[in-house]
């Protein structure tokens, strides 16, 4: 009985299901129409979504570009650059004849750079320095304008500059940020013979002759040796109402085609270091140097020589020839620490028969806390024929940015 009832129920359900699965042709046509409508709607939605995605991508790209432009585009102020360097020195030195000593703490140089790019090929650069911390009447220091020139790239390989600029001679005259050289005090040869740091007012052209061979030529104000003076360092007028009766000319050739190697030679002609006052005295400076870096080893060597007309011997016998040289090997024992030794010799009266040379041996260490921040310590042993050389320790800290 139960089995018959179950079969009847199943049979009814199957009949109902069969009736539901087989709609009439009209019903089927209606269903197809509905489905076609839904497909068309979905297709339209898909097209709309695609359009929105594309629009979103465009909006995203535009937004990203705008954000990048805001965050990365150079502002008007970025055409003007600012930098500087400085160095504090401590000297603890005793004179060989024990008649004097020098124990001094000196903020030797505080320098600010300001530059401005007028256009891709016209720029301005300046360097303003406070030397020895305090300037003024009776004070040890000076405020000096060391560079202030306009530079113009007038051709693809050539640029010209006019204004107040560093003379293209020697190693440290143009590059003297304290983190770029060894020793607290700058070497005595470039200081006393060349004499670095040396700037003049005038015009100059710099360019490349071929890959790694560059030239500089400059016409500029000259030295002025006042009555009783004979050392080039005393003749720097620092372009402050400088006497310019006679100009001077400087030329340099520099070879830098091999990485790590620089070989250069400079010649300068002074027409009259008396600038028309008294007897005319001309002079010629010849300087040559090599700077060679190979892996952690570096060698710097420089020779400089002044030849003045013999009339300068009336001021000081032997001043017609003034020479100097130094050799400085150094070794970087790590990224932070470098050791150096330097032998230097200069003579402002090299034309005399007597020995008047100043010899100096330095040995020391640079510790770079950061590539642009350096602590230095060195020992110097200076000898002069008159026993007036200073021996002792120098310490310092320097920075540039």
């Amino acid at each position, binding site marked *: 009985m139960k089995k018959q009832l179950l079969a009847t129920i199943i049979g009814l359900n199957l009949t109902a299901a069969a009736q539901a699965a087989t709609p009439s042709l009209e019903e089927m046509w209606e269903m197809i129409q509905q489905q076609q409508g839904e497909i068309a709607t979905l297709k339209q939605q898909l097209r709309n979504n695609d359009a929105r995605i594309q629009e979103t991508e465009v909006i995203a790209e535009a937004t990203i570009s705008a954000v990048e432009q805001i965050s990365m585009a150079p502002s008007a102020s970025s055409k003007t650059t600012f930098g500087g360097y400085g160095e504090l020195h401590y000297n603890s030195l005793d004179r060989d004849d024990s008649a004097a000593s020098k124990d001094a703490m000196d903020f030797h140089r505080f320098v600010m750079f300001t530059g401005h790019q007028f256009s891709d090929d016209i720029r301005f650069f300046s360097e303003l320095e406070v030397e020895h911390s305090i300037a003024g009447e009776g004070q040890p220091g000076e405020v000096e304008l060391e560079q202030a020139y306009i530079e113009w790239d007038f051709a693809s390989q050539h640029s010209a500059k006019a204004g107040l600029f560093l003379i293209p001679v020697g190693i440290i005259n143009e590059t003297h940020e304290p983190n770029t050289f060894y020793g607290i005090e700058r070497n005595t040869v470039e200081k006393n013979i060349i004499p670095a740091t040396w700037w003049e007012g005038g015009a100059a052209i710099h360019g490349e002759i071929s890959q790694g061979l560059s030239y500089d030529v400059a016409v500029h104000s000259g030295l002025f040796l006042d009555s009783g003076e004979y050392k080039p360092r005393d003749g720097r007028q620092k372009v402050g109402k400088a006497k310019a009766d006679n100009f001077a000319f400087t030329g340099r050739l520099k070879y830098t085609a091999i990485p790590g190697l620089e070989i250069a030679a400079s010649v300068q002609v002074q027409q009259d270091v008396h600038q028309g006052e008294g007897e005319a005295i001309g002079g010629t400076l010849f300087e040559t140097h090599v700077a060679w870096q190979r892996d952690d080893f570096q060698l710097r060597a420089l020779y400089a020589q002044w030849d003045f*007309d013999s009339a300068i011997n009336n001021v000081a016998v032997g001043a017609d020839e003034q020479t100097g040289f130094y050799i400085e090997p150094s070794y970087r024992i790590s990224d932070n620490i470098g050791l150096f030794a330097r032998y230097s010799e200069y003579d402002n009266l090299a034309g005399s028969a007597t020995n008047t040379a100043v010899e100096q041996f330095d040995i020391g260490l640079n510790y770079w806390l950061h590539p642009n921040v350096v602590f230095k310590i060195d020992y110097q042993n200076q000898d002069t024929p008159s026993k007036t050389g200073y021996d002792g320790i120098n310490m310092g800290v320097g920075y540039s940015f």
Partner: protein
Amino acid sequence: MLNKFYRVAVTIATAALFILTSAASFSVSAKGVLQSGPDFVAEVFAPLQAEPKVLWLTPEIRAQAAAIMDRPVRGLRIRYHQSNNKSAWILEEIGKEMPITIGVVVEDDVIQQVKILAYRESRGGEVRYPAYTAQYNGAALQEDYRLNQNIDGITGATLSVWAVNKVAALALYYHGVVNQSTATHPPQ
């Protein structure tokens, strides 16, 4: 007398040098833009065409890039080109005052080529010489994110040398990042 003769000779020689150099034609590339970015990329991947891609600067990537460059890294993304294991990057860094545009090609985590595409500084232009940039070939990144090769510098142009060193290291770092599938395709 000898000195006077010497001075006259030097003056004439200097003038001659100036005239000679002003009139001469040069084989070395000029200051300014030396090669455009598209030309560099086409040259690097020729005859194939590399796929342009974008590396998005996530906070982690930005922080590491800033550590390598020793300055904040701006922007949202870095565009580059890649074909197989070779990627080309065009990056900029300021030498002393002006940006240097540098192209770096990395293949299998090793530098294949460094090329200066634009140089705008007054000094230190020696970094654009092939003899200088060839020193980077074969360099890889150390664990401290610095180059594993010594690069001989240029006297008086330390800042330009540092700029190229940092960009070379950054390209190696970026290459390492994108080859761990961090890169995404740019919006079309």
